């Protein structure tokens, strides 16, 4: 563990400072992506014909490597955190839109009819019925988006020390200290796992009606709950 937690002075940060920076650079874009994805997904649910083109466009965005986006953005936003966060926000948007659309669409017709019969207006019905029922699907999408975002921040190291924990990778090569690279990868992985666990906790708190006990539910129950749609969203 010789020098494992000794951060080179050129990074101007402590170990925990880097972790904080990394979390900020990874999570703010996901939040922005979520705020953007909710209205976009709602439009896609409302106007069905809109969904395939939106999916196509976002998939193409998703395929553009983050490094290329960084380089193009440098001209506008400089070598700042913002340059790293913009593509990450776009990537989370790509994961979240299908998750929300599939989640909201999986709400059974009878449930909607019942809430309408109870006198719910469209806004209240959306906020109090459709969104809560879509929570498992949305959270599945969020888990993928957060993990991807945390692991992608490191690439920012290539455009001049904007990669938070990823900067350790550059320094590992610069100073010939492989333990810094190990530290970077391990810390990033642990961060991702902890955030994932936190999201699972949030999901469990938000969906008190769901059966507990992990994935070992009988097949019949899985079909009735519309699981395929949910997981499809998670897989994208």
């Amino acid at each position: 563990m010789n020098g494992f937690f000794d951060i080179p002075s050129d990074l101007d940060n402590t170990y925990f400072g880097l972790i904080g920076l990394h979390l900020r650079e990874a999570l703010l874009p996901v939040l922005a992506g979520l705020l953007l994805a909710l209205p976009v997904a709602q439009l896609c649910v409302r106007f069905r014909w809109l969904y395939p083109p939106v999916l196509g466009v976002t998939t193409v965005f998703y395929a553009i490597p983050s490094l290329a986006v960084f380089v193009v953005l440098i001209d506008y936003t400089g070598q700042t955190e913002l340059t790293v966060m913009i593509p990450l926000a776009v990537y989370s948007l790509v994961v979240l839109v299908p998750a929300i659309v599939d989640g909201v669409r999986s709400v059974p017709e009878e449930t909607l009819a019942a809430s309408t019969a109870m006198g719910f207006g469209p806004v209240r019905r959306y906020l109090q019925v459709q969104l809560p029922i879509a929570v498992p699907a949305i959270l599945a999408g969020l888990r993928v988006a957060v993990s991807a975002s945390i692991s992608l921040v490191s690439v920012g190291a290539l455009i001049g020390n904007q990669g938070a924990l990823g900067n350790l990778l550059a320094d590992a090569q610069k100073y010939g200290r492989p333990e810094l690279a190990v530290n970077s990868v391990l810390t990033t992985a642990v961060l991702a796992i902890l955030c994932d666990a936190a999201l699972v906790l949030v999901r469990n708190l938000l969906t008190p009606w769901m059966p507990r006990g992990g994935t070992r539910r009988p097949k019949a129950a899985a079909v009735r709950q519309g699981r395929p749609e949910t997981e499809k969203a998670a897989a994208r």
Partner: protein
Amino acid sequence: MNVINFVNAFFSDSAHWHGYDGIPQRLLEHVQYSLLALGLAAAIGLPAGLLTGHTGRGGNAVAFVATAARALPSFGLLVLIAVAVGIGLLPVMIPLVVLAVPPILVTTYEAVRSVDPSPVDAARGMGMHESSILFRVELPVALPLILSGLRSAAIQVVSTATIAAYVSLGGIGRYIIDGLYQRDYEKVVGGATLVALLALVTLALFWAAGRLAVSPGVRRR
């Protein structure tokens, strides 16, 4: 700065079209890395997903492996392995395979597990072997979802294979990394465009595969 101008300049420069650093050569390298990584990931993820999905056991293990693999940063892994074993194909393949296994594994598992139990029970009642139930009943029904998992893995691999250039291998990433160091944005934007086009071709291929391979009876939407 105009992205369209860059794209135009990059693709109309005839120097970019032949030789060792030409677009056909780089495209070929990129496709080779992507196919190799996707093949390895499918060889790991598909059998494991089919087996756990069919038996319904090991769901927690699948979820754990997927979470752990997603948590590992591709770029960090690349640098780490490159520092440990030196540059070559291995530091590129390991992060790409780690990236592609979770979507394949999770979707295959979920797809097989969520097949309607009544045809499966009917097949079992007719005396079909467990293996024929898996391959002749569950697999055809689960195929659209399995393909969507493979598709999302393929697109991530195509996009991420650009990191190969970072450990001095070829592929489209060459344009992006070289362009970055040479402050030649034309190259960077051109490389990004090539990757996006390749992703579109991948999408189209999977769409065609779905049309060909999925039985009309189970097509949805």
